[in-house]
């Protein structure tokens, strides 16, 4: 895995490192161009390939995690999501701490529609630059990196999982200083 990444970087202009894509985490458009219209998370691929030998061109997508499926209007999806988070009580008002700031803030995750919205708001609130997310490098190169504590108590990098999943599993946010976050980004 490590060597694969290294060779890619040395070959091209390393544009991919700073690329902001709308693709699903775990997918790589370069690979997708050669294969068929597969739009599925990599872990789903492995179990589907076992089941459908010749059907592996169309791996069954993880439920609710492929854009456009299931075909439910976004208005309805948002209503469902809101009701869910209201019911659980988690993933709504969360504390946000920033390294070096004297006090914490609280934000309502319900208010935001996407990572872009959230990051914009955080940058506004804390007057900092968070920079651009990439799967490979995280927020490498930025002054700060947003992280969050999930339901299981683990500290995760903001941006890895689909937005809706993030909202329901995020318990608190921490904006880490770039120097500390570097470790996270290079995993």
């Amino acid at each position: 895995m490590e060597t694969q990444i290294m060779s890619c970087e040395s070959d091209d202009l390393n544009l991919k490192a700073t690329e902001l894509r709308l693709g699903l985490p775990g997918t790589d458009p370069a690979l997708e161009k050669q294969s068929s219209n597969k739009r599925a998370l990599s872990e789903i691929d492995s179990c589907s390939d076992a089941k459908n030998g010749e059907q592996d061109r169309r791996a069954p997508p993880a439920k609710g995690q492929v854009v456009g499926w299931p075909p439910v209007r976004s208005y309805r999806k948002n209503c469902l999501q809101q009701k869910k988070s209201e019911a659980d009580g988690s993933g709504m008002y969360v504390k946000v701490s920033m390294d070096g700031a004297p006090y914490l803030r609280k934000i309502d995750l319900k208010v935001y529609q996407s990572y872009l919205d959230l990051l914009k708001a955080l940058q506004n609130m804390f007057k900092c630059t968070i920079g651009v997310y990439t799967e490979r490098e995280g927020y490498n190169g930025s002054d700060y990196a947003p992280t969050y504590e999930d339901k299981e108590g683990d500290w995760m990098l903001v941006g890895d999982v689909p937005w809706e999943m993030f909202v329901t599993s995020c318990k608190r946010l921490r904006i880490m200083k770039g120097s500390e976050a570097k470790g996270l980004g290079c995993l």
Partner: protein
Amino acid sequence: MNYFPEEVLEHVFDFLKSHRDRNAVSLVCKSWYRVERFSRERVFIGNCYAINPDRLIERFPRLRSLTLKGKPHFADFNLVPHDWGGFVYPWIDAMAKRGVNLEELRLKRMVVSDEGLELLSRSFVNFKSLILVSCEGFTTDGLAAIASNCRFLRELDLQENEVEDHRGQWLSCFPDSCTSLVSLNFACLKGEVNLAALERLMARSCNLRSLKLNHAVPLDTLQKILAQAPQLVDLGTGSFVSDPDSETFRRLRTAIQKCASIKSLSGFLEVAPCCLPAIYPICLNLTTLNLSYAQGIHGSELIKLIRHCGKLQRLWILDCIGDKGLGVVASTCKELQELRVFPSDLHGDGHAAVTEEGLVAISAGCPKLHSLLYFCQQMTNAALITVAKNCPNFTRFRLCIINPTIPDPVTMQPLDEGFGAIVQSCKGLRRLSLSGLLTDQVFLYIGMYAEQLEMLSVAFAGDSDKGMLCVLNGCKKLKKLEIMDSPFGNLALLTDVGKYETMRSLWMSSCEVTLGGCKTLAKKMPRLNVEIINEGDQMEATPDDDRQKVEKMYLYRSLVGARRDAPDFVWTL
């Protein structure tokens, strides 16, 4: 025909209500075309980019009611970027400048701005009716302008729009002199409303027939409104939460009992199930019931409620009703014509869902069923074949199996035979959505039997170009074809290019068509707009590499060429 007075023709055309009929008569001869165009007041435009405002007004100077649709259907499912297009402003602007006497505007999947609403409210003195479905781009400030300036407003109907709520006083903007409201629907607004202003508005709107409240309107306010509006025909409650022992609740029960005209009920955006018995008295007369946003009502309470609704014709519900609940619907609602079962849990955990059992029960108990939207966990060929036999009258059949590529769980076969039975039996089928494991075979059936099919939605289906070709070849009345994640490529796209001029539009995403194929099509068919949505600049670097696959393609016939408002990431080839 030369000596047939035009006034007589015009009088005859007055009886033609449907757009299709009017379109047909306008093609008969030049004089009929002329008479028809000067007498047409209601115009329907299925694709706002197929024509432009100036030509519309030129042809139909007596325009009073305009219906416009903007974004492609798959925009509903986040497949189309926000700033793709579908702006209504140019239409409002043109009609205002050319003195159109606009009374009604109905928009679907369009971008509406506050400036547009403001202009609308000031430009048309007789404006009466605004209906917005799945639109976005405006705020409650725009609504305030409508409320303030449209003196004869009868209808303000907001369905499932994304409205930025400034928590302002838009409701208070209806002047005291406004008493003309017949229909008000603001259920999709997320913010608070001025309850006192709402009550006063309702009190002076004695012609009110349809009212749909948002979640911020409590039961107490509902009770006060209903007490003054027993003539309501269509009601959407907001919050339906109260203490059943309270005075408020008692007053609500009294008020509801006086509402003898309510035929349509919806809402329950927040609900305490113990309060539901208050509505049992009106359930007897209901023909339409929409509980698809009532997540607070669970299986058993839902079933109890349904047992009271013997006259239902249209039912929209969540899948938490379960197969057993659908069995109750089947035995209670003998007049049922339309059923929609929506998913209550998008991540498919499976417990609160319905299966083929529920659908079979419905088909057996409800012979008048002709329109279906069904989200389920699984489906079998046997079930579909039974449904096809029981209900040969389907005009709309949309099946969505949450995991879109699973086979028949009993036989492990694709669902080709099941859908084949549906298209063969339902000779009047106009709209079909497929899901489940499907091979080219299902498309063979569709091409062979679905003679009246106008709209087909395909996802994760088929094996080869042959599939798509069967459909294009066989479905003579096809108007809209939308395909995602299926292995159809250039051969399918290019074999019969003339076909697309007989259709409104074609959408293909995550298929096998290449840039080269799309360019070829665009070159051959100048009256088609072939648009590529190039998100993430995937093709910026190599715009001449014709072999690269196109992620999203949307093509449509147009009389006015490439649109000039396309954003950077949309390429018209």
